[in-house]
């Protein structure tokens, strides 16, 4: 469904990704794990069009999206839940979700999507008129995911969904992502919380200083000695 081949990207003179290739099949959940500064966020930003890659191809359902602007890439069915959630803090929960359905195709199915999001995250239904900025970190993460679902995506990119959350909330958020998965969405998630994320996904890639170092089934990767030592602290 999504296939990156030979993607190199960066900011100014700095190169954050070197010749990265990865693949996500339809219905699959894939994680990219790695230490801070490995280029995980850059990887998602390249896919969603916030950064234009210097070289390489980003194939989504057969079309090369490299170089397309972000607002056009969403229209192809790629929703990005960015690092730090990036909600509209001054807007209400309901308005944030409304903005998630900004695309004409999504707007046409607004009611249906809204019902789906409220079923998935009942707390959002209770907080419709609350300003997004005044919610707790966990609730904000739910809203960010809910907002992404409003665009009727085919694949969801999640950037560090557990970042900055209390340990109890981390488990809840992973639980919710699992439910989103069960709804049939394809997921590409980037995480530092390696232990939790490997329980969630089918396959994972290990990214280190901008290069893919390893790839494998989540269970196999979790068994690898050096992954355990380096990232899981076991």
């Amino acid at each position, binding site marked *: 469904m999504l296939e990156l081949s030979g993607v190199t990207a960066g900011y100014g003179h700095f190169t954050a990704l070197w010749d990265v290739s990865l693949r996500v099949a339809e219905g699959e959940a894939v994680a990219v794990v790695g230490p801070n500064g490995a280029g995980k966020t850059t990887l998602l930003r390249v896919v*969603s*069009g*916030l950064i234009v890659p210097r070289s390489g191809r980003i194939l989504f359902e057969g079309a090369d999206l490299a170089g397309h*602007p*972000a*607002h*056009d890439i*969403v*229209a192809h069915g790629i*929703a*990005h839940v*960015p690092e730090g959630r*990036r*909600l*509209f*803090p*001054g*807007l209400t929960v309901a*308005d944030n979700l*409304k*903005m*998630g359905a*900004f*695309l004409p195709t*999504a*707007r046409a199915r607004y009611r249906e999507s809204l019902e789906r999001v409220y079923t998935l995250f009942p707390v959002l239904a209770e907080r419709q008129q609350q300003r997004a900025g005044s919610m707790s970190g966990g609730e904000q993460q739910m809203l960010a995911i809910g*907002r992404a679902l409003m*665009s009727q995506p085919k694949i969801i990119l999640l950037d560090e969904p557990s970042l900055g959350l209390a340990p109890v909330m981390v488990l809840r958020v992973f639980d919710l992502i699992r439910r989103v998965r069960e709804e049939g969405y394809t997921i590409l998630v980037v995480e530092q919380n390696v232990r939790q994320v490997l329980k969630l996904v089918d396959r994972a890639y290990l990214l280190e200083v901008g290069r893919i170092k390893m790839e494998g089934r989540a269970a196999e990767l979790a068994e690898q000695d050096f992954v355990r030592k380096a990232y899981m602290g076991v």
Partner: protein
Amino acid sequence: MDPIFLVEAAINGILLGGVLALLALGLNLIFGVLDIVWIAYVDLVMLCMYAIYFFNVAFGWPIWAAGLVSLAAGTILGVAVHLLIISPILTSAPINQLLATGGLLFFLQSAATFLWTTDHKTVRLSLPSYEIAGIFLPATRIIPFAISILAVIALYFFLTRTYIGTAIRAVSQDRDAMSLMGASPQRIYIVTSAVGGLMAGLAGALLIFQYSVHPFFGGQFGPLTFMICVLGGLGNMVGAFIASFIMSEIIAIGGVVISTEMGYVIAFVIFIVMMFVRPGGILAKRE
């Protein structure tokens, strides 16, 4: 002094505040979304006033039709300023953007002087005045005030109830996130500039009731509009609305109690003091 003069001044302040609010909200809306202050904003208003003058006085169109021309002219000018001046320098340093719109100000003033001379041009309207309990209320002030308030209400509903209006508020909070929602930033900028221009056109149509137009009209209201925006907190629409009435009241009452010039002096002094007390604007949360 007869207290009736103070009451009359206070009412005149409110009536002036309505039109000032329109100018301040237009400028603030554009700043909120684009992070650029259109220094030449009131000079666009000046062009719109000339449009009314020519269509009404020279071509003999009825005033309402000339007013519609002003609205159209404002909208087109707003979009043109964005596409021709702002858009090419959107990613350059803020100071350059400021200088570019400042350059536009001098260009517009000089072009207007060249084309239409420095003569003050007036649209003559024969409208009645009302006297209630000894207070003199001319329709040339009541009508612009009423239309301004209706326009502000319309703007409120546009920004809170429509998709594109909500998107405009969203972009002003997080530009990148809105493009992840599928909104083309350029499209939002154009809509914002068009709405800002439309408000300039409406302000022009309302100011022509009370003021004559000349090439340096922008100097009369430009700095005042900018100060209202800063006083209300740049980008803060509610703050700008309240600040419009604060400034207009100070000018109106100060003008009656001391003199018209002193009214402005007091308003500007209070503005400077407020910048020390509340640099983030009147509605900013205290640290």
